[in-house]
């Protein structure tokens, strides 16, 4: 091998093998191919692009080595690399620079190729990635919060994905490109854009990936467009577990509605030809396709992975001969445009550049305070939200939409009716809003919450989905990040749990890990909580909110009374539109159709719909509770079904001379604890009525919040037993009842119920 210049003292085994192999490649071919000639006969990849992609591949490799070097010095924090996968640079080259890309963590080649093809300076992409490894605040996407591939100017949406959890969003982005065009709504993508997502071979087996592939096929089967290119980068390994031979091809190649092509990711020209063919197909036909890219994996799964513990030395050596950089070097040498020595020197010069840049960047600032870290979690502009929440369509438009009778002229409405009318107003006032979920379209929801909306707003904006909560939320995430305003419905709270990562890992984290550059405005309506007498059992009476309460930045609204339903929904929608807020709007099913509070026909669980002219005054800011009944002897803190039960109990307590102040939290996150504390301090006796479970229930937040603020008065908490909710009357044995509240209040006051 030629003498290395600049001299290098720390080449690792993979680099040494690569440079040695390049050095042994044959001499330049004749005739020399011109820049716009195919780099190989029969390929659509030309010489000039091959040279550009070789640079992207080599720089990506240098980043992987730099990552380990920085880690060794204690200043780098991420070593999962792209080595062996650099063929994905060909995929970037086969796409348009503005095609939205959702990339997995071995996408260095793709990212650097897109950066270069977008016209940025040669080392700009390298700088981005190094800044991520070093967790620098001026890293362009996560601002030091993670090392991800992402950039708003490159239309690369950052993914911090658990395994393949970004694929449902990718389906959503592709869906949104077409749906927005149909609706005439502007998005951040061009009308002819296609979405691309990449993932590994082991991830194919994850239910989330299977769900996304299924949803793509299902969409095509319905005759709907879905311009999405799936790219499975198959290195044959899931950390230490090999993919069974032929399995990935078997599961990807037979998908209904998805065109499939396989290519060797170690052969840049072959990978490019396949990617270009599929990208062209997806763009032209607006149908999804799968590119199965065979790759190798160098240096193990990550920096801590000792590959020799589960792979033989021979197999590892054999992979070195398939190095994608070696493949590209061979193309350039065979095309007569480079010599082995020139490519070795070019590789080493790039290596030195990356190392030098890493050293220079290492001096840059890191995140310094918790406030800095958390700044993009949930930015709030309450004044702007209030203004947006008060905006409505014209009276004439509303009259037409609502079929002649305005909601405010209908008289008192139930909770379900209030939500229905509020959704109607949102759909009318916001052309980019969409309502979707299982049974929400023609049927209008299993409880009638969306009845009539499809007919009024059209099937493009109010529609039924397939039965898969991950896909429903993924659709919403893709729509939101594209510029639409999704309001999906999860039919029952218990059904959310299998898809909860789409909220936690994807929706709530996007602003955080993109430093606010990407948002997915979202209002997820969830029917839930217990007390449906004589119906359901656990799955239809689920009250598990703990999994939602600990999601950073997530807003949880839970209206109990119809008078709050519409304004709280409008607040969530406005916050989504203004700040990109992600909200869960948790509806107590048992109160949907309730009309009376104390006696038959008292109508106290209904409320008139407020006319738009008074929306401003009726606005309910996020995180603001309210006193639902005045009193001085005991403060009952509750929400949703608990509000209904507590107001009934308060009337019974009044009959015994006890004056109860009932406080409706309305928001479980952020919780209005400061306000609760003020009332608690004033009264000195607090009864928390928590319809969710004793362990992990929302009431824990009330009690600990008061304790942390120094409340020293008397306090008790009533909560559901740590049990699933059984069928029929047995449910009452584990749920908080009206009698429990009366008893609890009297105990606080030192009395006993006779």
């Amino acid at each position, binding site marked *: 091998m030629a003498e290395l210049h*600049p*001299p*290098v*003292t*720390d080449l690792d085994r993979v680099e040494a093998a690569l440079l040695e192999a390049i050095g042994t490649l044959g001499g330049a071919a004749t005739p020399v191919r011109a820049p716009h000639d195919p780099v190989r006969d029969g390929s659509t990849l030309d010489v000039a692009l091959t040279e550009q992609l070789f640079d992207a591949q080599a720089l990506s490799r240098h980043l992987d080595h730099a990552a380990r070097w*920085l880690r060794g*010095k*204690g*200043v780098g924090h991420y070593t999962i690399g792209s080595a062996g996968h650099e063929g994905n640079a060909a995929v970037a080259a086969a796409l348009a620079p503005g095609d939205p890309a959702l990339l997995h963590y071995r996408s260095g080649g793709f990212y650097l190729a897109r950066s270069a093809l977008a016209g940025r300076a040669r080392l700009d992409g390298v700088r981005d990635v190094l800044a991520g490894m070093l967790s620098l605040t001026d890293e362009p996407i996560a601002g030091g919060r993670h090392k991800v591939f992402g950039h708003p100017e490159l239309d690369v949406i950052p993914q911090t994905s658990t395994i393949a959890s970004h694929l449902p969003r990718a389906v959503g982005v592709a869906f949104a490109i077409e749906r927005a065009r149909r609706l005439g709504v502007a998005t951040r993508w061009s009308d002819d854009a296609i979405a691309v997502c990449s993932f590994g071979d082991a991830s194919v087996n994850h239910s989330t990936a299977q769900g996304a592939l299924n949803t793509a096929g299902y969409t095509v089967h319905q005759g709907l467009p879905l311009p999405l290119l799936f790219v499975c980068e198959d290195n044959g390994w899931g950390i230490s577990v090999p993919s069974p031979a032929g399995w990935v091809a078997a599961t990807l190649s037979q998908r209904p509605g998805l065109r499939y092509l396989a290519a060797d990711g170690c052969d840049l020209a072959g990978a490019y030809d396949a990617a270009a063919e599929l990208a062209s197909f997806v763009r032209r036909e607006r149908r999804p396709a799968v590119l199965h890219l065979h790759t190798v994996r160098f240096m193990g799964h990550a920096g801590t992975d000792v590959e020799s513990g589960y792979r033989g030395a021979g197999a590892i050596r054999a992979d070195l001969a398939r190095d994608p950089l070696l493949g590209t070097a061979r193309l350039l040498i065979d095309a007569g445009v480079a010599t082995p020595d020139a490519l070795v020197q070019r590789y080493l010069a790039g290596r030195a550049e990356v*190392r*030098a840049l*890493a*050293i*220079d*960047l*290492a*001096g*840059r*600032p890191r995140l310094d305070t918790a406030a800095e870290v958390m700044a993009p979690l949930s930015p709030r502009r309450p004044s702007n939200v209030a203004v947006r929440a008060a905006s409505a369509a014209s009276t004439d438009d509303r009259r037409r939409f609502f079929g002649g009778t305005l909601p405010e002229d209908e008289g008192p409405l139930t909770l379900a009716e209030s939500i229905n009318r509020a959704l109607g107003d949102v759909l009318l006032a916001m052309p980019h809003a969409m309502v979707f979920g299982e049974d929400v379209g023609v049927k209008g929801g299993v409880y009638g919450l969306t009845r009539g909306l499809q007919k009024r707003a059209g099937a493009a904006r109010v529609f039924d989905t397939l039965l898969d909560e991950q896909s429903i939320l993924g659709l919403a995430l893709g729509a939101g990040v594209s510029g639409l305003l999704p309001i999906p419905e999860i039919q029952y709270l218990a059904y959310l749990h299998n898809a909860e990562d789409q909220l936690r890992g994807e929706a709530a984290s996007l602003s955080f890990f993109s430093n606010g550059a990407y948002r997915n405005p979202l209002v997820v309506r969830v029917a839930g909580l217990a007390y449906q007498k004589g119906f359901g059992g656990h799955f239809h009476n689920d009250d598990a909110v703990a999994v939602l309460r600990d999601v950073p930045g997530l807003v949880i609204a839970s209206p109990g009374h119809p008078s709050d339903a519409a304004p709280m929904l409008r607040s969530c929608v406005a916050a989504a539109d203004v700040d990109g807020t992600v909200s869960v709007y948790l509806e107590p099913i048992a109160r949907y159709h309730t009309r009376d509070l104390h006696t038959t026909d008292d109508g106290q669980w209904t409320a008139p719909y407020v006319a738009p002219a008074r929306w401003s005054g009726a606005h309910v800011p996020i995180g603001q509770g309210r006193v639902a009944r005045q009193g001085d002897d005991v403060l009952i803190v509750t929400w949703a079904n608990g509000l209904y039960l507590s107001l009934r109990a308060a009337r019974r307590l009044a009959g015994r001379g006890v004056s109860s102040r009932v406080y409706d939290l309305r928001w479980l996150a952020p919780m209005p604890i400061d306000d609760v504390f003020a009332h608690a301090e004033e009264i000195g006796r607090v009864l928390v009525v928590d319809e969710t479970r004793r362990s992990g229930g929302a009431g824990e937040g009330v009690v600990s919040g008061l304790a942390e603020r120094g409340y020293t008065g008397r306090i008790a908490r009533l909560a559901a037993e740590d049990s699933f909710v059984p069928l029929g009357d047995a449910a009452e044995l584990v749920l908080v009842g009206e009698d429990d509240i009366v008893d609890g209040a009297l105990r606080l006051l030192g009395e006993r119920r006779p």
Partner: protein
Amino acid sequence: MSRRVTPIVASVVAIAVLGTACGDSRSRQRARTELVDQLVAGGLERPVADCVVEGFFVVRNDAELRDFFARDELTEAERAEFAELGEDCLDG
């Protein structure tokens, strides 16, 4: 090996100059290049000097480097660090 590296480093660091602009990567690069050159002039082979200086710079922000170059003497901790870097770099 470290016995050979440490005195060389100690003899030259006092005259290297880091620009005053915090976060100016050109100043950082210049200081690094100058330090490497001085180590080479002091007797180290260039790849080893590169390696030593890279290892020293990468773990320091600009303020820390300014503080380093403002002093005439190495601290004991820096002396030990250079010794370790020297051994690592000579080992390849």
